[in-house]
């Protein structure tokens, strides 16, 4: 059974990777299978981990307070009826209000205040540390000025906003570098998975390549096919 699962997971991985050659039926098959299984898995998980312990089991124990979230949940489905759609605003208002209440305080405490404090640095003392602090403060101020639109960016304001763009570009470059690293890590993960049993991978690569070559020749004459 485990060997079969390995073959299936290897084959599906290669089917997905075959998209790099061009869009093809093998990729479509794997993609649809993934979407369908994911939907089924998450529905089952939502029932087992959330609905059953928090609602079904509690109602079975006689906890009638849980009827309130049940009714609110059912009201969400009134969106499908034109006449009753307004009722769905109640559960949505509850969700938005609750998360707003939690997040406003959380952002204020965790991000705004403490991060502001973290930028109030002494850059007159401390040698290289002071230089680093100066760059941080100057970069922050210049970047903020770039987003100041109440006055035309001319003269000194233009110079500072250009410096701000420079800092922003460095920041975007760092983010891009980290994003590339993240995506390459995923590719390495798949490659390591396939190399764990190179024989199976090689056989499947050969089979998929043959299928793609045959399919490619058959569809070559069809108009409007993109590569």
């Amino acid at each position, binding site marked *: 059974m485990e060997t079969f699962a390995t073959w299936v997971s290897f084959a599906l991985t290669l089917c997905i990777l075959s998209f*790099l*050659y061009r869009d093809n039926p093998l990729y479509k098959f794997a993609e649809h299978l993934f979407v369908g299984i994911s939907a089924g898995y*998450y529905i089952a*998980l*939502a029932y087992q*981990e*959330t609905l059953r*312990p*928090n609602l079904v089991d509690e109602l079975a124990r006689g906890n009638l307070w849980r009827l309130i979230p049940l009714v609110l949940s059912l009201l969400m489905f009134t969106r499908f009826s034109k006449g009753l759609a307004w009722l769905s605003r109640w559960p949505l208002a509850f969700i938005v209000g*609750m*998360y707003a209440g*939690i*997040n406003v305080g*959380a*952002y204020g*405490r*965790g*991000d705004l205040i*403490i*991060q502001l*404090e*973290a930028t109030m640095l002494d850059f007159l003392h401390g040698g290289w540390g002071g230089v680093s602090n100066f760059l941080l403060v100057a970069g922050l101020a210049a970047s903020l000025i770039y987003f100041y639109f109440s006055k035309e960016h001319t003269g000194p304001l233009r110079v500072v906003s250009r410096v701000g763009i420079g800092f922003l570009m460095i*920041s975007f470059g*760092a*983010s891009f570098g*980290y*994003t*590339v*690293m*993240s995506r*390459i*890590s*995923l*590719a*390495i*993960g*798949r*490659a*390591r998975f396939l*190399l764990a049993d190179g024989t199976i991978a090689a056989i499947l690569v050969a089979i998929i390549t043959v299928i793609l070559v045959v399919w490619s020749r058959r569809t070559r004459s069809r108009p409007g096919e993109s590569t």
Partner: protein
Amino acid sequence: MPGALLRKLEFVDRRWLFLMMACAIVIPLIFPVPLPIAVTDMVQDLYDSIEDLPEGSVVLVSVDYDPTGKPELEPFHVALFHQIARKKLRMVIVSLWSPAPPLTEQVIAEVGLETTYGMERGVDFVHLGFKEGRQIVMESMGRSLRQTFPVDRDRTPVSEIPLMQEVDKYDDFAMLINISAGSPGVKEYVQVVQSQYGIKMTGACTAVSGPDYVPYYDSGQMLGLAAGMKGAAEYEVLVGLPGSATAGMVAQSTTHLLLVAFIVFGNVMFFLARKRRS
């Protein structure tokens, strides 16, 4: 450069680039070359902050990633459990991501918490599993962990679990360690838990999230952070167990070099083509 060759290179089929990229990933994995890995302050501080905890301390580990995040976060997860077990710390494991608990069980088995280190489930560590609710669960754990998770992953009531009799609120934990692939994760824990309860916090995140979370380390809200496969590789070096992240860093390096070459090549071709047209 001859015009025909220039035109050919200008419109090179992108699949050749994919093939080169695949080679840059696969060849170093088949023929690994050991590369030195320099440990950054951020990861060193993470390691030290755990190392400084007294033996027997209880840490709260929130595992919040799915199979997509495995290549980046599982190496850290494995190394973390090794460090926790060696230091003889105890831990309570929770998840705010539904696919995380099976991954945690795999790591528990791989590290051998029960078999190799002799840690006892329920006494030395507890796996409470997944709870839906994102930030609401974080808030709720601040009031009472036992009420938030009335049973553990195996449906054992927490009232019957010895370790759970010692901990109930964030104050009862020596540290919060978050392994995060996104939201809810590090950001939410910092905002909702660390800033409100003042608990010591460290963690690991995917490389994509790294630049967003580094300011939390700079401001002292997090004691340390391991970002992406590189952070995990550094942490593996510190724990003394080079694993899949360390092995993957060679492929990372070759791929990054190739990408730099692609960017240079693309720019050179762009300017040559513009010159030719003018």
